[in-house]
């Protein structure tokens, strides 16, 4: 039925299609590369004082950092625990607050159409745009110094990430179960509960754990508002120029996050 020439023509056509696709793709890569080159030129090549980097001080400073000071480890135990508590509270609070925001901000289930969708999106953007340092300062005015301001600041930041990822997960759930429940005459809330929630729970919990470890990291700068924890320890080491001590505190944070990874591995197995 089909002659060899038609086949050849089609083959050539497909080859040219992929070539055209490739051309646009390479165009995009080139554009990315050019902007990178420009930025490298302005920010790095022109800005950096290479002579100063070349005179060996870099190596010396790095060596100072590598000279880890383990003598301060006992002083880090309680702050590490405080950090863990703070991060946990902040994450829990953030998750609770993120659920309604995610619900508003997912276009396929938002309750009032464009209106509530926009509210959800604005909340997400706001929470993520403002850095936790600024949030912390704001909450110092509202609740005073101490761990609470730090926890609130971290929780607000958590909302943005969790609600965004969860609402995206909601937007690309498998529609089959939703249809099955629709066909059974379930109402919107029931569909949400039975077809949407089970599908996004892995994402939600996965991100909860991710957010928890981001919050451990964040809590290390919450010393700014008197929240204590490893952040304060870090500041002490910096103030005393104990480079080795700084490394120790950073390692302590790493240990906490490693602990988070192990917990998350187990949690994931149990849930998913």
């Amino acid at each position, binding site marked *: 039925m089909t002659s060899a020439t038609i086949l050849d023509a089609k083959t050539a056509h497909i080859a040219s299609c992929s070539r055209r696709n490739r051309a646009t793709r390479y165009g995009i890569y080139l554009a990315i590369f050019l902007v990178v080159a420009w930025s490298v030129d302005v920010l790095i090549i022109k800005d950096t004082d290479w002579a100063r980097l070349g005179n060996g001080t870099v190596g010396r400073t790095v060596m100072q950092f590598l000279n880890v000071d383990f003598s301060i480890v006992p002083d880090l135990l309680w702050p590490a625990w405080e950090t863990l508590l703070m991060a946990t509270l902040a994450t829990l609070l953030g998750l609770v607050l993120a659920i309604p925001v995610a619900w508003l901000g997912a276009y396929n289930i938002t309750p009032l159409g464009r209106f509530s969708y926009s509210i959800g999106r604005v909340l997400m953007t706001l929470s993520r745009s403002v850095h936790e340092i600024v949030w912390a300062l704001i909450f110092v005015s509202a609740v005073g110094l101490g761990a609470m301001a730090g926890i609130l600041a971290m929780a607000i930041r958590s909302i943005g990430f969790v609600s965004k990822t969860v609402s995206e997960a909601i937007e690309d759930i498998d529609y*089959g*179960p939703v*249809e*099955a*429940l*629709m*066909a*059974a*005459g*379930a*109402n919107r*809330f*029931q569909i949400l*509960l*039975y*077809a949407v929630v*089970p*599908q996004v*729970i*892995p994402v939600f919990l996965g991100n909860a754990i991710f957010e928890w470890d981001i919050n451990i990291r964040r809590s290390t700068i919450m010393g700014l508002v008197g929240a204590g924890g490893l952040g304060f320890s870090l500041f002490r080491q910096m103030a005393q120029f104990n480079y080795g001590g700084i490394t120790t505190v950073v390692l302590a944070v790493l240990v906490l996050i490693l602990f988070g990874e192990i917990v998350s591995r187990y949690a994931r197995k149990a849930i*998913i």
Partner: protein
Amino acid sequence: MEVQGLCAGYAGRSILKNVDFKVGPEDFVAIIGPSGAGKSTLIRCINRLVEPSAGTIRFMGRDVVGLSQSELRETRRHIGMIFQEFNLIERMSVIDNVLTGRLGYTGTLRSLFRAFKHENVRHALTLLERVGLTEHVDKRADQLSGGQRQRVGIARALIQNPKLMLVDEPTSSLDPKIAREVMRLITEISHELGIPVLCNIHDVQLATEFCSRIIGLQDGVKKFEGTPASLDKSALDEIYAMEVL
């Protein structure tokens, strides 16, 4: 149930073209036709999972096409549906999957805590026994084989005590013996409850064996309607005519 002048399509492309048919009580109607003919689309129009673009669907004395959202929900409760791709909730247990069939009758608060009525749970267990899944009651749906999943889907549809069953290839993942059993089960229920069944099926032999009437669809157009006896070679040839291969 009666369907008149039904048209439907996806994104401008029309798939179903002016399909009419009637389904009487206890009718077991099979829809056969080549792949891509629009069989699934037709089934899904009946309970408006696909929105028809024209036509009427009379069911329980009303036109399904014109119903408001809450009336549609009310109507869908009475239509059990079995899907080609199962559409189970993967991360829930088998029994919970079956129980979701009762959601249309369950209050919001009860469904929040998964506190289904005791009689529903019993009913679900009975149905699961009937489809041979007693051992798997507490397994998660994603741990089942294809055939096992399909049977969960069947139990979910049956627990609705439907007044009409829509079935989209119920046997495509089942071995021939179970396929027969399942078809028999559906026929039995249809007789017990006196409800009609509308069923997509590839296997013409199964269709002729179990169904009381057969509709042949080709390229969105009804090409045949009649009893299994009247489905002869020439009718089959017409239904599957366009296929290339």
